[in-house]
């Protein structure tokens, strides 16, 4: 019975698409889906009414934990921050936001929705980039921000247990006071929540050093679609080979098979000596050479190796200038590419000696044009800004099409060049300015083979999207890369999974979804369709 209803919901979603989701067999087809043509609402899900709201209220301890337009407790404007995604690209029509204060409340709300067949979208800090954390239609928004305390921290092992709604930066600051560091860092750290980070398997700036969340997460507490609380936090064990490692399924599941409510994670010691240098380079070949040299000179203290192109750098500098920041000279000689290298170690003198060796080598062999080295903590932060401000600067310059791709390092930048060529040919982009596309910038994490392409347009537009997609995915597939290195699938990339995964993988994923959520009520219209 339940099996059928998921199948129904899925069929309803898929059958109305103009084209089927491209899977392996249609890999090179030129069929296109435009973002504004989102899947229609599935009739398998219940329509919320005022009486549902009354029932839901009874499950919650505080009246402020529920906001709805159905009972007049909130206006449409009040719900906008929950319905609109961070990029203002996707606009949901959710009528209810529930913000439970305890895991039990999450469980009760889920059980209610399960029984009534109400579709639910779990939401953390809503900083996702693929439209995964906002409703597509009228899904109930289950926002975790009220579930935000740090449950425990063991100073000996560095094991931390937190609520899902705790904000990354808050947690990291708390860890800093114990001399530890959260093994994940990303631009949205001031708003994003740990639960969302884990649910989307966020990558970020320090993956090179600390690895992915699949390694550092030790246990999870999850509310399953029917309201069952699964306590998989365990004893914070690093080694446990007893059966399937269930938590791994939830890491990166994008809220489609359960709602993560608690996380146990291993946090490393915070490096006491941090250093950062930024280089300007003549070519992408030089970027790769510098990466090889950096690895061999710095070894275990290398904690980040980021690159960005001239266009990204110029965009940030312009953004800083417009923001009224003092004009601080960075480079004598600017380049076509820039690289940011961060070291984190336990002894300043030791790290400086290694860094010195690297710098001498790079200068002597003319691998870099120029470079700067932070002399104090203020400079450390302002040099990081050159990289961290790229997404924000792009956002300020227009509506941004963001692509987050994984390809072998030598091929990485050629994708940006191909994109630029294609958009120039189409007349949408003009080098000298004045095109409907204002900027095309490339940047990313060299160490992880992860490239970000940001295309800033006057506005989100069907014609522009047709030129970019699925071309961008085709050129990634040609290199056997991934169409989503760290942003996930969400609604934006769900139809394109076939460019990265074969049919057997996709079928297995569907069976997993079917097993956890046979009614298909959790985060529908997204991820695995």
């Amino acid at each position: 019975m339940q099996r059928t209803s998921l199948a129904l919901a899925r069929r309803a979603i898929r059958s109305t698409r103009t084209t089927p989701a491209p899977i392996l067999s249609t890999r090179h087809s030129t069929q296109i889906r435009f973002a504004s043509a989102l899947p229609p609402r599935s009739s398998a899900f219940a329509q919320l009414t005022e009486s549902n709201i009354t029932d839901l209220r009874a499950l919650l301890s505080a009246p402020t934990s529920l906001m709805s337009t159905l009972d007049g407790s909130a206006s449409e404007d009040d719900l906008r921050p929950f319905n609109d995604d961070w990029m203002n690209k996707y606009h949901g029509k959710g009528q209810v936001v529930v913000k439970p204060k305890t895991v039990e409340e999450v469980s009760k709300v889920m059980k209610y929705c399960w029984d009534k067949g109400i579709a639910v979208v779990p939401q953390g800090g809503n900083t996702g980039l693929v439209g995964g954390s906002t409703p597509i239609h009228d899904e109930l928004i289950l926002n975790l921000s009220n579930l935000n305390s740090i449950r425990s921290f063991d100073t000996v092992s560095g094991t931390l247990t937190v609520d899902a709604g705790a904000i990354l930066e808050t947690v990291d600051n708390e860890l800093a006071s114990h001399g530890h560091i959260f093994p994940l860092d990303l631009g949205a750290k001031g708003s994003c929540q740990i639960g969302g980070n884990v649910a989307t398997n966020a990558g970020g700036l320090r993956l090179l050093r600390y690895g992915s969340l699949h390694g550092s997460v030790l246990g999870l507490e999850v509310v399953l679609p029917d309201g069952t609380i699964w306590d998989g936090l365990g004893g914070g064990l690093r080694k446990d080979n007893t059966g399937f490692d269930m938590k791994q399924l939830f890491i990166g599941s994008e809220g489609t098979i359960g709602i993560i409510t608690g996380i146990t994670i291993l946090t490393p010691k915070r490096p006491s000596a941090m250093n950062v240098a930024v280089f300007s380079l003549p070519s992408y070949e030089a970027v790769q050479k510098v990466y090889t040299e950096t690895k061999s000179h710095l070894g275990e203290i290398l904690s980040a190796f980021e690159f960005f192109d001239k266009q990204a750098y110029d965009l940030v500098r312009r953004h800083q200038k417009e923001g009224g920041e003092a004009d601080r000279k960075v480079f004598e000689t600017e380049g076509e590419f820039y690289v940011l290298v961060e070291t984190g170690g336990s002894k300043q003198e030791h790290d400086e000696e290694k860094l010195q060796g690297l710098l001498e080598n790079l200068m002597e062999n003319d691998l870099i044009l120029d470079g700067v080295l932070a002399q104090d903590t203020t400079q450390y932060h302002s040099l990081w800004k050159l990289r961290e401000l790229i997404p924000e600067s792009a956002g300020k310059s227009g509506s941004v099409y963001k692509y987050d791709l994984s390809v072998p390092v030598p091929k990485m930048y050629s994708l940006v060049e191909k994109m630029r060529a294609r958009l120039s040919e189409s007349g949408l982009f003009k080098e000298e300015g004045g095109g409907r596309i204002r900027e095309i910038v490339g940047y990313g994490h060299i160490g992880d083979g992860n490239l970000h392409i940001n295309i800033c347009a006057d506005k989100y537009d069907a014609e522009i999207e047709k030129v970019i997609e699925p071309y961008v995915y085709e050129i990634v597939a040609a290199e056997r890369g991934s169409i989503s290195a760290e942003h996930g699938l969400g609604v934006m990339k769900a139809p394109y999974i076939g460019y990265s995964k074969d049919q057997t993988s996709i079928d297995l994923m569907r069976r997993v979804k079917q097993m956890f959520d046979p009614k298909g009520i959790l985060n529908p219209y997204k991820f695995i369709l």
Partner: protein
Amino acid sequence: MIPSRVNLINVLVPVKRAIDYAVKIRIAKDGKGVDTTVKHSMNPFDEIAVEEAIRLKERTKAVTSIIALSIGPAKSVETLRTALAMGADSAVHIVTPEAPSPSSNPEPVNVAAAIKAVIDRSKAAGADKAIDLVIMGKQAIDDDSGSTGGMLAGMLGWGQGTFASKLDVDKASGKVEVTREIDGGLSRIESKLPIVVTTDLRLSEPRYASLPNIMKAKKKKIESLKPEDLGIDLSPRMSVLSVSEPPKRVGGGKVENVDELVQKLKEGGIV
């Protein structure tokens, strides 16, 4: 042709190694100072002074040499290297004993005397070596004394332009114009060289140390002097009795309604 006097400005920039601006300060266990086992960097106001000296050199072409000077324990050499990497031409280090010796962080009057000794020595070395302009931070962010610049000008009998937010040196006439930040406005003063200028935040935005310059700075020699070499005494005249933290802020509470608010206000004797 012999260059005129103004073409030969030698600028002295005293720089102090202080606790990094971004470090959270903790009181030392003995309660007589702060924990100094933390990251140190160049005092930010001194960084501005170095930057301004370099800009003056680039802008007016009237500066022949920028000399960085630091008075402190062995690690002050790092601060001098930073100044050299930014663009200072040479550096002098007056080495003091390591902490916790009270002479490791000398008092302003002794610092001023030490700077004066360096300037006197430069005059003795010949007219082309004589220092005619001192650009220095208005204060160091560790002890916040803010008095060294003024004392130095007094000891030397030079003019002074304190809290500078703008500095102009006229190459031909040797006139110096300093715009000073004062309460509620700006004051512009004019003087002739020599002069002591102390920097305020808005004077300039310090540049990053570039790698080529860091490499060059490694090769530049730093002159190391003991206080005795200059005939000065850095022993303190004051001793710190205690250092304490400001009282902790007490968190507030939430009230449910207006009545409770009024009641709380009455309890607190506010209404």
